[in-house]
Structure formats: C-alpha cells, structure tokens
C-alpha cells in the first residue's frame, strides 16, 4: 500500500490509529464510490446542495474556528477549508476518491472539527459547516473508517446502551455505593432507584459511575437538600451520552435516545434533568430526538445549569458562604450555542462565587474546548493534536488568569477533559471545577 508515502506527506498522518488504518485497508475505490453515492443519495438533499452551491469561497468563516486560530491561521484548518478538502472534493469527483482521500477525510472530520457551530455565526450565509462535516463522518462511518477509541465507545453504546461498558449491576452498585457514602454525611439521604411517578429522572453519562462517582454523590446531596423528587433507573437507558451521534452511527444513536426517552416514560417522570454534560444535551435535545422524528424531545429536558438556576432562584438551595476564589467560566458550545444557557449560567456563577471574571470572547462567541464533538473520545493518539489545536483557548484562559481568575468552571464533561489537558500542557496552573463541585462545597447542608 501507499502508506509510507502518506505518512511522509502529512505530519498528522504520523498518528497511527488502528481503527482508521484497518478500515482503510478493507476498502477499494469501487466500494468507496458505491457507499458514498448511496449515502449521499439516500440521506442528503437540499441542505447539502444549497450550502455547497451558496458558499462564495470568501473565507469569512475562518476566524471562527479555534483550530484555524491555533494553527497560526493555517487555511487547511479553516471551516470552509475543511469542507473543501472533504465534501467539495467528494461532490466534484462524484464519489470517485481513493483510500488516501478517505483517510484524510476521516482525520479531518473526526479530529479537526468539534462540530461546535461557532462558524455558523461567522459565515454571513449561516452555512452549517458542522452539518457538512457530520456528513463526512457519516460517510466514514458507513465506510468503516472511524477512530479506534471513538468506535469503541460506539460499540459499547451498541452493546450496553451506555458509553463505558458499564454492566447493569455495576450501575446499580455505583448508585447504592454513592448513596451509602453520602449517608455518612446526610443520614436520611436517598438515591431513589426506579421510583415510578417521580418528578424528575436524573440522567448522567457513563463516565460518572465509571470514573467520577463523586459527581453522583454530589448530585444526590444537592437533590436531597433541595427536596427534589427524583429517581434514577436501574435499567439501561440511564446513560444520556451518545458518541454514536459523533461517529455517524445514527441508527445506534436512535436506539440510545429511544431507550433514554422510554425509560423516562416508563418511570412516568415529568422531565429529564441531566448532569453537567454538553454533548449529551445536544444528543437528547437537538439531534437524537430528530432522528426519532421528535421535533422537540418527547419529554422536557433540562440541563444541570438550568436546573441549578431554578434551585438557586427558588431558594431551594442556600449558599452558606460564597466561593471565595476568583472564577472564570467556560461557556460550553452545546448548552450555549446549543441552548442559550449562558445568562442562566452567569446567574448561577454570580450566586455562588464572590468574584467572576469573564473570558473573552464569551457567551455564544466562546471558543470551543476542542474536546467536544467526539474529538476527545478519539483517544490518546490524538491527545497532543487536540491540545495544540486549541492554543487559542490556552491564551484565552491565560488572559483571564492575568486578570485574576484562579478557577475555571466548566459545566460540561468534555470541556472538563479538554480544559484539563490544556491547563496542564500549557502550565496554566488553574483549578478546574464543575458547578456541582462548587455548589456541593458551599451549600447549606443539614448537620
């Protein structure tokens, strides 16, 4: 195969990713052409055509993208630049592209775009680059060329309906375990499992029971102190995360969201409240429901940020003493550009913290953390690339730090993972917390 040549020609192709490499090895140009044309014919239409036909090649979207900015304005990383290297070429050649092309396309689509949609606010036409890149991902998925680690999460989703291969008994064990732990602090605390008719189904992403069980603990404390009537299911469907949305495996995405919504229905809850996760919110609120032909989610969905806002506003949790370290706030794309929660988030931060220092740009215009869109899930092979792809975020954080911020609040799991690496790599020496961490720490608790 022509692989050595590829490796020499493109630096980032030095990254060895078995998922992609083995997938490529199985392909032939004929198969590529067939799959591409089949998918394009079946699944794309007016949007693809209009976006591609309308783009005037003006490059105005470039400065929207943190990859572009972080790579010293390298046009290959501009939003339209990435579309040029993928979709334009595919359409021009009518799907007659070779293995190397698919390899590059897969690299670009999965690891050089977070689908953060910032560029849609910079293109005068509102061309949805994230949608176009999703099409490339869909094609790569159908061709079986996906990053190994990401595909592993997709497999887990498919087999277990959660992202981290958490077995059913491990899940309930984690809940009971966290309940017990928390009872040391609040003796009558409960994590009501399978409580039919509860008001709220509290859903989380699988990394919580797997690695960050203290988040379940904290949420339980907050819920109990606020007197919230909530429940968590014992069955699959408890996980709201969705990496299939990002690999392009929409069939499994549909299964996941169906299980999630059906669990909520089965428990007869009034709404789903989800933990501090951006991509999961996107999946439940914006993407997965659409695949299932629900214009809006069949049952109301509330992100943690909004939920905390309610609790604080209604005085259901009280703050014992405000958090005294100066904080800055990462606006996660998926709940800010994705749900406009920036003002509520600021209300929450102001209610919790003594000093809040804005990052710039902020709100809808905030830079993505570069972990979202499944990029962090593409795993260790791409870690450095991901971190270097967001130098601009490091600069943004550093600027906030010079104005006094010591703590970064990021109410999103991906942001958390992304920012952690950035803070570490660039030696920023800032603390990183979820809102829940801080609420738990400073709220009034029964003694």
């Amino acid at each position, binding site marked *: 195969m022509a692989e050595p040549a590829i490796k020499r020609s493109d630096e980032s192709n030095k990254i060895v990713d078995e998922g992609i490499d083995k997938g490529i090895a199985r392909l032939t140009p004929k198969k590529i052409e067939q799959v591409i044309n089949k998918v394009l014919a079946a699944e794309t239409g007016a949007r693809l055509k*209009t976006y591609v036909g*309308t783009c005037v*090649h003006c490059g105005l979207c*470039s400065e929207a993208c943190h990859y572009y900015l972080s790579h010293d304005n390298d046009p290959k990383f*501009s939003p339209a630049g990435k579309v040029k290297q993928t979709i334009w070429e595919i359409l021009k050649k009518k799907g007659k592209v070779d293995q190397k092309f698919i390899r590059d396309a897969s690299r670009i689509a999965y690891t050089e775009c977070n689908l953060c949609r910032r560029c849609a606010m910079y293109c005068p036409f509102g061309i949805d680059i994230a949608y176009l890149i999703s099409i490339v991902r869909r094609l790569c998925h159908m061709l079986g060329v996906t990053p190994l680690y990401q595909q592993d999460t997709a497999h887990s989703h498919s087999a277990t309906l959660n992202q981290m291969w958490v077995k059913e008994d491990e899940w309930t064990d984690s809940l009971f375990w966290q309940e017990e732990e928390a009872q040391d602090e609040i003796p009558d605390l409960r994590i009501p499992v399978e409580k039919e008719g509860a008001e709220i189904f509290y859903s989380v992403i699988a990394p919580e029971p797997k690695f960050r069980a203290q988040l379940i603990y904290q949420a339980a404390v907050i819920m109990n102190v606020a007197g919230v009537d909530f429940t968590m299911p014992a069955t699959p469907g408890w996980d709201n995360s969705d990496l299939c949305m990002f690999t392009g495996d929409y069939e499994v995405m549909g299964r996941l969201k169906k299980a999630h919504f059906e669990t909520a229905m089965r428990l007869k809850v009034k709404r789903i409240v989800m933990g501090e996760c951006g991509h999961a919110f996107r999946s439940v609120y914006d993407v997965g429901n*659409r695949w299932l032909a629900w214009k809006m989610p069949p049952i109301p969905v509330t992100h943690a940020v909004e939920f905390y806002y309610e609790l604080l506003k209604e005085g259901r949790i009280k703050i014992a003493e405000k958090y005294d370290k100066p904080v800055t706030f990462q606006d996660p794309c998926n709940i800010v550009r994705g749900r406009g929660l920036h003002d509520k988030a600021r209300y929450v931060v102001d209610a919790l913290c003594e000093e809040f220092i804005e990052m710039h740009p902020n709100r809808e215009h905030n830079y993505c953390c570069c972990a979202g869109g499944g990029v962090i899930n593409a795993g260790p092979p791409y870690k450095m690339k991901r971190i270097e792809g967001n130098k601009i975020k490091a600069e943004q954080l550093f600027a906030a730090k010079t104005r006094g911020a010591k703590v970064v609040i990021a109410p999103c799991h991906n942001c958390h993972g992304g920012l952690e690496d950035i803070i570490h790599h660039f030696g920023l020496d800032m603390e990183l917390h979820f809102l829940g961490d801080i609420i738990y720490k400073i709220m009034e608790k029964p003694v």
Partner: protein
Amino acid sequence: MHDIYNFVSGPLVWVSFIIFFGGSLYRLISMAVLAKKKDVIVYEYMSLKYGLRSILHWITPFGTVKWRKNPILTIVTFTFHICLIFIPIFLSAHIILWKESWDISWWYISDTTADVLAVVVIASCVFFLIRRIVLPEVKYLTSVSDYIILAIVAAPFITGFWTYHQWPGFKIMGIIHILSGEIMLAAIPCTRLIHMVFFPFTRGYMGSEFGAVRHAKDW
C-alpha cells in the same frame, strides 16, 4: 454593427432575463421540492420571526460581531452589493431603454452619480481580487471559477463606464457592455452568484435553528 446591436439589445435581453428569472425561480423551487422530500427538517424548524431576526442583523452594516470585527471588508462588501443592485436599476441610460421598449420608467440617478458609484463597484472588485490573491485563507478556497465570477460581475461596470466616457472603441464596448450585462444576469442562477437568491433561506434557517430551538443568537 446594426445587426449585432439589434440582436444583443433585443432577443438576447429576453434570453438573459428569462434565464435570470426563470433560472432563479427554478433553483428556488427545486430547492424547496428537494427539501420537502429529503430535508423536511428545514420546514419544521424554519421560523419567520427568528429567521427574519437573523437576516436583519446580517444585512445591517456592523450589525453582527463578524461585521464589526472586519470593518473594512464590511464597508466594502455593503457598498459593493448595494451599488451592484442599485446602479443598473436606477441608471438613466437603462431606464430610457425600458421606456423605449415598454413605455415604463421610474426614478433615476444622475449620470454623474452613476459614474461615481460605478467606480466604487469596480474598486470593490479590485479589493476582492486582491483579497483573494493575498489572504491565504481566501486563496486556499479559490478556484478559477472564483476569478471568472468576479470578472463576470466587474465586466458590466468596466464596459459601461468605458462606453459612457467614450473611450476608444466605445461603440464596440457598448455592445460588449450589453453582452456582459446579459452574461451577468444569466450567470446568477447558474453559478455561486445564486447566493443572492439563497441568502434569505440559508441565513433564515440558521437563524431559526439558533433562535427558536437553541435560544441563542447567531450573529
């Protein structure tokens, strides 16, 4: 000369207007039909209120963060586009031709004004050309077609100006002017110049998604 003139100022005008209006209408309808078939989502989420909200911001100079961040480009692109549409419609020479053939007429600008505005358009085209050659992010996206499109748009202004000032060869230039105007009109539905027709829809859709579903601004 007379034969050519009669041809370009007669049947070819018809042809170009039919291609322009018919073609644009065709592109619009085929987009709508295709969307109905394959992207019903667009109909579901399109919202008049939020679509217009976004469009209004984007057609206002400095009405968006993007426009504010690039003041020079903003000024150039707005004057360019406004003049581009304004001049041919309100040019006295054009209106007289309408009057002669259809006995219709409307308000027009003085030739001096038109002259100045034509220069503005030509200068803007030069700006776009330089930008395309000099800025790496634009250059990267550029193909030959982009230069051709720019030339198609600049041509009626250059040739019109030439003819008006009766520079050498103005008679031929007049004919070329008419031809180039017709080419530009016909090119609109056939090239990326269709952006003029699609702008309200792409922007309106993004505005609807951002406004109605995501409760966020997209400007």
